[in-house]
């Protein structure tokens, strides 16, 4: 049921003028994609430094809460650009992307990364005064930081794999994979 609704929504998006204009413009589409990829350097680059600081591998002599606080703004700027360009990329190819198993896994990983980030910030704010100048954060924050790095590595990998159609609906897929990819009967 949900897959049918998503397919209808994707087909409606596909039929809009804006969607066609972006996909059919070589430079517009490719520059949106380039911006999406380049902002990895801003968003994930900053995130990597925050997580590596928590794990004790980057700037161990600088207060951990100071690093997290100072790098949070550029990271969020990068994330905002990534989010907007990501929406535009989906808008340009909604029918293909909606039925990509990699896109769906990427979305799940993004949601898990979001909740992990909330948990991380909550725990950090509650306890930072006791450890912020230590070279490594307490265990629960180190686990969150390592999880964050792993989840974002997964987001990057699945994002890259969207371009490959190995498990797309026009292939011969097992039932569970077909359902997970959002395939519907013609």
């Amino acid at each position, binding site marked *: 049921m949900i897959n049918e609704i998503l397919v209808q929504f994707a087909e409606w998006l596909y039929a809009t003028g804006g969607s066609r204009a972006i996909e059919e413009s*070589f430079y517009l589409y*490719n520059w949106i*994609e*380039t911006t999406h*990829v*380049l902002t*990895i*350097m*801003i*968003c*994930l*680059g*900053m*995130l*990597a*430094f925050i997580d*590596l600081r928590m794990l004790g591998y*980057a*700037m161990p*002599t*600088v207060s951990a809460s*100071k*690093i997290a606080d*100072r*790098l949070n*703004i*550029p990271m969020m700027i990068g994330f905002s650009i990534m989010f907007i360009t990501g929406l535009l990329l989906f808008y340009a190819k909604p029918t293909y992307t909606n039925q990509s198993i990699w896109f769906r896994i990427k979305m799940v990983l993004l949601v898990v990364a979001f909740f992990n980030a909330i948990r991380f910030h909550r725990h950090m704010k509650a306890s930072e005064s006791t450890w912020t100048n230590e070279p490594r954060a307490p265990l629960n924050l180190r686990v969150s930081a390592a999880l964050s790095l792993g989840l974002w*590595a997964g987001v*990057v*990998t699945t994002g*890259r*794999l969207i371009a*490959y159609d*190995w498990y797309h609906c026009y292939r011969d897929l097992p039932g569970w994979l077909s359902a997970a990819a959002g395939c519907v009967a013609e």
Partner: protein
Amino acid sequence: MELLPFFEWAETSFLGYIGKTYGGVYATFGQSLHLMALAVLGGSVLVADLRLLNVIMRDVPSEIVAEQAHKWFKVALAVILSSGVFMAAAVAQRMYHNDFFWAKMSALFVGIAFVFVIKRPLLKGSHADIHPMVIKLVAIASILVWFSVAATGRWIGFSG
């Protein structure tokens, strides 16, 4: 010097064979790893350069930020070069005829030379001894060079 024979050989090498034959290995150990390393490299460049430009972490000595960022820059560069060689080997002949590949190689060469010949030696000592305008120019040049490397790299895939 004619480089085409080298590119032809690269495509028939073990690395070229693996990348050509196994799409999943190419996409994950080549492309995804390359992107993750790009994130860390870009992060290290931006953390250091935005600090030099007094945009972020103004309450942390720029010497410490530049030193620590350079450590991770070297790690990321090593991964980028390794995964890049692996990816290029699989499609070596196509790369040889791709203008954006050569643009990226040129930008990469300039970027590496800039970091190890100009930026790092300059910033090794106390930053208070360097004219603030020189520090800012170095930071802006560094950001421009590495964004050019990344952008030309992405356009390799769009140009044939």
